[in-house]
């Protein structure tokens, strides 16, 4: 796969504060790559270094195979969709979208054709003459995206562009963004703190915390095989058990043995975390054929329509979260508060964090 963007040991310091700490990753051509992390994790700074608004203190940024050090933003083959969109308030939709093309001095009819094409792409045909303040939040969003996209950048950078939208609109735009990316095939680097957005749209995700990249992988890998306590907690919910490992078994104080997939590299007696996702855990009066089965008592139950979330108190006095299909869906049933139940999961679903 051709690599479009590559960061090599990039560090950014603001005075004494290390905003980005030795970050390296490469993004392939046509990939939808997300930087996911809580606010202040350095994801926006990383993006701004790719765009050229910040220079790395150390390390290199390569775009399309070229070293970008000392290349100012207006000469980089990137375009950024800003967090607060930064649409030009004094220009109409047409002039906003054609801003970059006019600077490149493209012929008038070509500009016109491209703007039209872009407005069709985001399903806003005929919007050329509209003023920016006359547009709804979602419409402004789309204009901001195509204003960047119309320049055919090697890579499109998106800095939490869906942040200011309400939930419903955000869900719509997530689908829309993915569709746009599929249609144009441009490399996208997307910054977000919203795991839902990242999981839905990305080909790969880099989880960031405190300026470092903790894990890079497909949404499924990140979600199901988190490599750190932070990732396990940040992406979805996780039940975590601390114990010491020996030959495919983790001994948890007060609870007993959790059988996991053997990891030859892990030395015996080492303290590890076992992570079990709530929806991978079965709940029932009796359970059979699972590697790990524990008895417990239903303490809380939240009916959420399709699923019901249970909080089950185990023998070691810890609460475990279980998500099961609600009653009415085939084979599932609702458990009452205080009911004695069994919870269990197979060793495949007992992901070990070393």
């Amino acid at each position, binding site marked *: 796969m051709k690599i479009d963007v590559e960061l090599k040991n990039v560090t950014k310091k603001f005075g004494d504060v290390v905003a980005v700490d030795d970050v390296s990753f490469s993004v392939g051509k046509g990939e939808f790559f997300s930087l996911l992390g809580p606010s202040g994790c350095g994801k926006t700074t990383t993006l701004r270094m790719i*765009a050229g*608004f910040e220079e790395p203190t150390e390390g290199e940024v390569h775009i399309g195979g070229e070293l970008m050090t000392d290349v*100012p*933003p*207006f*000469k980089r083959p*990137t*375009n*950024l969709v*800003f967090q*607060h969109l*930064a*649409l*030009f*308030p*004094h220009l109409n939709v047409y002039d906003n979208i054609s*801003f*970059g093309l006019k*600077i*490149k001095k493209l012929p008038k009819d070509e500009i016109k054709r491209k703007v039209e094409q872009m407005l069709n792409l985001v399903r806003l045909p005929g919007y050329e003459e509209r003023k920016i303040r006359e547009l709804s939040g979602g419409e402004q969003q789309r204009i901001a995206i195509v*204003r*960047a996209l119309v*320049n055919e950048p090697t890579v499109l950078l998106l800095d939490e562009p869906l942040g200011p939208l309400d939930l419903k609109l955000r869900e719509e735009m997530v689908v829309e963004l993915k569709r746009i990316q599929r249609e144009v095939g441009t490399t996208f680097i997307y910054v977000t703190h919203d795991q839902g957005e990242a999981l839905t749209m990305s080909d790969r995700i880099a989880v960031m915390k405190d300026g470092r990249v903790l894990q890079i992988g497909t949404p499924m890998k990140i979600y199901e095989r988190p490599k750190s306590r932070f990732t396990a907690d940040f992406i979805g919910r996780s039940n975590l058990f601390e114990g010491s490992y020996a030959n495919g078994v983790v001994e948890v104080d007060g609870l007993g043995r959790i059988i996991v997939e053997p990891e030859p590299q892990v030395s015996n007696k080492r303290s590890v975390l076992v992570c079990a996702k709530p929806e991978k855990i079965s709940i029932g009066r009796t359970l059979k054929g699972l590697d790990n089965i524990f008895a417990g008592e239903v303490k809380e139950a939240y009916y959420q329509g399709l699923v019901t979330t249970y909080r089950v108190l185990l023998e070691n006095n810890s609460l475990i979260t279980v998500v099961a299909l609600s009653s009415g869906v085939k084979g599932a049933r609702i458990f009452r508060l205080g009911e004695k139940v069994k919870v269990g999961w197979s060793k495949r679903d007992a992901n070990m964090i070393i």
Partner: protein
Amino acid sequence: MKDDTTTGKRVLCILADHLRPILSYLPPRLRLNLKKLLFILLEMKKLGYYWRLFPGVFWLVVFLVLPLSVMLIYSFWTKVGYDMIPTWTLQNYVDIFVGEKGLYVRLLLKSLGISAAVTLGSIALAYPVAYYISTRGGKYKYVLLALIMTPYLVSWVILILGWRMIIGHSGLVNTLLVGVGLERVKLWKTWMAVIIVLVISWAPWLVLPIFVSLEKIDRTLLEAGADLGASPSENFRKITLPLSVPGLLVATFFVMIPTFGEFVAPVIAGGTSGATIGTAIEEAFKRMNYPFGSAMSFLLVGIALIASFVLIRKTGLRTLMESL
């Protein structure tokens, strides 16, 4: 009962309903008077609200409406000897256009020209300063702004006379010119001197509205411009300048209208070649020709009003007021 829409009347009707049994004991004539009294009391309550406008209205009346009304009335009168006769004629206005072989029209145009030149000149001086303070001022922004205002601590007339020492007959400029073996130039007592003096005096003041409109520009717009390929100078032309237009219009307001009727600078710095409509008005009042002076003044007010109206329509009152 008729459909009474005002609350006052409705209240009165309810009151009347309750009072009717009592009223019926009273003689008919007194009954009617009581009703009238109630009405008057209610009207007075309404007046109470208008009283709250009093301070503002009083201020406007004393400082604006009163003197201007006197002037407006005078502008239709005629001067005979040293007396003003209430003739109610438009002759004074006609005289502005036809009198003295069109002198006043020429003065009017000259004043317009000077005020346009002063506006352009002072904006050209103030804009770079405002831009510099806004973009590079950092934490000293407001200190720098305060420093910009220091010339106004000195009297206006003293400032003008100060400029005489620079561009006057044996001023700094001419001394230098003679020093390098060139001819003296006559700057003082020309219309150029009037423009220079006015530009210098207005420019610092204009830094303020321009600064405010520059400060309001979202800096990420410039980042967006850069991201879309605009060089810093293209960014300035395509984003900063158009977005600072409200500030420029406010600046135009500030300068153009007062300069239009200016007469101090033309008299001191311009001498005889500095004659403007402002000096003509002053002249007329000096010669006790109040009707003609008033008519010229009112023409100025009219032109200023039209100019303001056009400016407001063009920018929108809101943008204008926000950048003040």
